[in-house]
């Protein structure tokens, strides 16, 4: 089934959130069978930090938290600021 327009927008929103705050880099090349995608890993990292249920999927609680107003300091190595 193709994703609905709403779902696609949410997926794109989540991807941009993870790129901004969790240093998600562009996914390139084929994913090995059974592997966990970098996006799923970053999603799980974010869910762990916010004490959400770690599902690795973009569930309602995760999306809700991503949409809350927040501080813009990326949760990544600070070296890039110095």
């Amino acid at each position, binding site marked *: 089934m193709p994703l609905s327009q709403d779902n696609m927008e949410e997926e794109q929103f989540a991807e941009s959130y993870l790129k*901004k*705050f969790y240093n998600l880099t562009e996914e390139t090349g084929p994913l090995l069978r059974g592997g966990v995608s970098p996006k799923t890993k970053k999603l799980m990292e974010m869910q762990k*930090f*916010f*004490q*959400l*249920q*770690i599902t690795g999927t973009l569930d309602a*609680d995760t999306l809700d*938290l991503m949409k*809350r*107003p*927040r*501080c*813009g*300091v990326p*949760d990544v190595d*600070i070296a890039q*600021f*110095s």
Partner: protein
Amino acid sequence: TFGNNLKWQTNTLTYRIENYTPDMSQAEVDYSIEKALQVWAKVTPLKFTRIYSGIADIMISFGSRDHGDFYPFDGPDGTLAHAFAPSSGIGGDAHFDEDEKFTFRSNTGYVLFMVAAHEFGHSLGLSHSDDPGALMYPHYSYGNPDTFILPRDDVKGIQSLYGGNEEPIAPGPTAPTTPDACDSTMVLDAVATLRGEMLFFKDRFLWRHSQQSSTPQQTLIANIWSSAPDNIDAAFESLESDQVFLFKGSRVWAFSGYDLQANYPKSITSFGLPRTVKKVDAALYEPQSRKIFFFVGKNYYSYDDVRKTMDKGFPKRVDETFSGMTSQVTAALQHRGFTYLYSGPYMHEYSLRSGRLYRVLRNNYFLPCS
């Protein structure tokens, strides 16, 4: 902290306000910034001096979209502000997104004091905290600048970098800690259900727990219901009306989903409770009979949600119906046909029909320590 002992090497820092937001008066901005810095100065040896020209350690500015640091803002909401960790140049600087509506102390915009206090935490060397009660938690929540007290997690963080304030300061309220589900002595304020989840209330927090998940999610009550009070006394869900009722003192709030219902908060007398009752200790909803039980001291009242009147013959002593329950009921819950009465850190499992006590359990029976 950011690690590597990333901090200022001096305790005397300068700050400069480069420009102002039109959302507030200049005096309000000055006051908010000064007060936000003092949040950190109170608990450390740090001293802040304002300068009006030249380069300060902490340069403060309002800007929108691309504002010259390669970290563009994103328009209204989303990212509110950002700040840079201690270092020379841009290090320590705090930038506020001018596309936000900043306010002095209203909860209809973003309180500049709260956003600034958080950003200055970064300016001084603190990273984000995963404690939902901490100032350094990455998501905004409303705080009143007049009553704000720096939470314990933030105090520990900043003092790990700079140590404590050696100057005597007037004794004041202590730093609030975030309740811990693993604390076996914790006494919950209230317990309720919400659309299949369980809610456990404590101070300004609640845990949401669904049967499908092994990990309860802790959050601020204000993050779910911005108009709800903290430190509530009692709560219950009416499955009939799909509403959650929160009690504090002589008032009750009703929410459907995230929304406060019209004409609430109301007096608790709207449930037929006498005016002599100043607060409810616990409440539960029994869906089969559609009765609401209100626990007040050693007594309880039964309200008929169908007839909208208090049942005759009440109040009754709690231990008349619930054998052995002679201590105060602090929270109550009806779940899967059983009645759970909390008293202190213990939870008593009853049959409502027979009043028989089955088990004495602890909080972690429904609220796991994780």
